[in-house]
């Protein structure tokens, strides 16, 4: 394995620009120029960049240990299986789960689809008796929120449509917070599933997980947490949060694309019907039927994303050694600097919590008279990468009276200079477009 750079060894001191500049040395992609300007990467909410230790872990796997896992008795097969299961152990520990409670998926989207398809299978005639607790039918309700990413909305829409269940949602207030009074009315005895995001990818709001779980527990509903925007940025402990399921994407937390995770309570996972079926997930197979392995193999049919899992473990290691609490604190500062700076520019409307209030290190905003696509193009001409569009949250944008917005999202490798370069450029946008 690659040794951890000395400067990343955990320190109690807060992260600051000086250390961030050293961190940037681990991310070769960040040192390039774009349109003649130094790249300012503020799109980590969409996808993050990879440190050398992650790239090297993946390469080392292919150079030294590549093989199929959980089959074959040869040396490389053993090495690969060990690397794969070690990775599971590391990433499970990273989110506070036991190894058999972490299922590898391609990304959070696949994790959420795995859940919804498993619950659909549980709702079909002939499902195993143990699966009855996941079966939905007319009269049952699935509750989501108005701020969900499409990935945590459409699988539930589809599940409701196919089972006859009803999809309901907790509305968002003008400040970008969930309406908890409405939530208390909506979550009730008919609620079977409550699915919500830990942190909004548009508003930056961190949702009150404990308050929502307190509403859901008495109803017996299953609680699903979309941790895409929290797992990379703040200390996450799925057991302490007391959720039943959680999903996250590796590429938003310094790992390559194509790998993510689904956490589930072990007793639930072992009672759920499989989603994808085939090799590696079975016990005994006859021409007529098959028995299924327990979790996690139960949900990992076919050859897995082995090198990506190894790389994700290296990414989790990088984050842990930097310290999630320190990353969270640094991004809080960057987020506040973003919001305060944006609010001081005429014609800018920041979405979500106002300056001074808690948010993750991102800010989405509307520029009066200038479309988000044009804002993004203008910023790109200054070497600044941001996300434009509806950020896969059309209902939320509609709620806010918009079709699109511009979003700047930070990570542990962004400096206050990055934020200032961005703010200076935003200040010039309306002038350029004569708005």
């Amino acid at each position, binding site marked *: 394995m690659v040794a951890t750079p000395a400067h990343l060894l955990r320190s109690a001191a807060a992260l600051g620009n000086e250390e961030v500049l050293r961190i940037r040395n681990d991310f070769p992609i960040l040192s390039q120029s774009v349109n003649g300007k130094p790249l300012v990467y503020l799109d980590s909410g969409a996808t993050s960049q990879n440190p050398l230790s992650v790239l090297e872990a993946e390469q080392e796997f292919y150079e030294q240990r590549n093989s199929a896992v959980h089959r074959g008795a040869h040396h490389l097969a053993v090495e690969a299986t060990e690397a794969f299961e070690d990775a599971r152990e590391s990433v499970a520990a990273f989110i506070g789960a036991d190894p058999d409670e972490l299922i590898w998926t391609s990304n959070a989207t696949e994790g959420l689809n795995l859940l919804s398809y498993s619950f659909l299978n549980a709702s079909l005639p002939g499902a195993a008796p143990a699966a009855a607790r996941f079966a939905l039918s007319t009269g049952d309700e699935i509750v989501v929120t108005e701020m969900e990413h499409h990935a945590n909305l459409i699988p539930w829409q589809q599940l409701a449509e196919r089972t006859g269940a009803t999809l309901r949602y907790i509305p968002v207030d003008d400040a970008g917070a969930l309406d908890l009074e409405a939530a208390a009315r909506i979550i009730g005895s008919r609620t079977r599933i409550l699915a919500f995001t830990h942190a909004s990818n548009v508003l930056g709001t961190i949702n009150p997980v404990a308050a929502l779980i307190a509403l859901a527990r008495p109803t017996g509903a299953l609680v699903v947490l979309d941790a895409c925007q929290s797992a990379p940025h703040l200390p996450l402990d799925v057991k302490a949060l007391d959720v039943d399921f959680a999903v996250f994407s590796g590429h938003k937390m310094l790992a390559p694309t194509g790998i993510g995770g689904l956490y589930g309570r072990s007793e639930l996972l072992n009672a759920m019907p499989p989603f994808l079926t085939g090799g590696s997930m079975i016990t005994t197979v006859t021409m007529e039927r098959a028995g299924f392995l327990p979790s996690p193999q139960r949900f990992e049919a076919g050859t897995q994303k082995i090198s990506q899992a190894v790389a994700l473990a290296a990414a989790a290691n990088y984050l842990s050694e930097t310290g999630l609490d320190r990353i969270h604190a640094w991004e809080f500062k960057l987020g506040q600097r973003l919001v305060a700076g944006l609010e001081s520019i005429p014609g800018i409307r920041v979405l979500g919590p106002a300056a001074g209030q808690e948010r993750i290190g991102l800010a989405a905003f509307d520029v009066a008279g*200038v*479309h*988000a*696509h*044009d804002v993004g*193009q*203008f910023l790109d*001409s200054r070497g600044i990468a941001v996300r*434009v*569009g*509806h950020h896969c949250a*059309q209902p939320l*944008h509609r709620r806010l009276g918009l*079709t*699109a917005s511009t979003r700047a999202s930070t990570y542990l490798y962004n400096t206050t200079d990055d934020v200032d370069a961005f703010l200076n450029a935003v200040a010039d946008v309306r002038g*350029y*477009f*004569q708005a």
Partner: protein
Amino acid sequence: MSLDQLYQQIILEHSKARHGSGLAGAEVPDGASSGKSHQLNPVCGDEITVRVAVADGKVRELRWDGDGCSISMASASVLTDLAEGMATEEFRSVIGSFREVLRSRGKVAADPEILGDAAAFEGVARYAARVKCAMLSWVAAEDALGQAVSH
């Protein structure tokens, strides 16, 4: 390629002027047959509805409603100026020329003789993410024209 080559002055002006914008309450001209098409850019949520009215083998009127970036709004405005009064067959061929330029990744130069002000969108072809913005109203117009002619 600089930002100013993408956002030429004529594009910025048309993005504000929005010629042809406003479908609500606008009746189809007497004696014309019309078609209407709605197009959406799922990437950004931009959308446009274009109505084309045809009479005597010519485009009598083009009207649209839409919401989008300066490229898409300017493109619809320029399209309106270009289309009105043009023979339907020529209009079809102009749409084809515009598409060819926009999809060429900058390899096909725009001919101002054919495209008029729409030649200003030549620079968009180099920005793959923006081609759909410029094409949105033209695709809608092509569809609407097909309906109007077949009526």
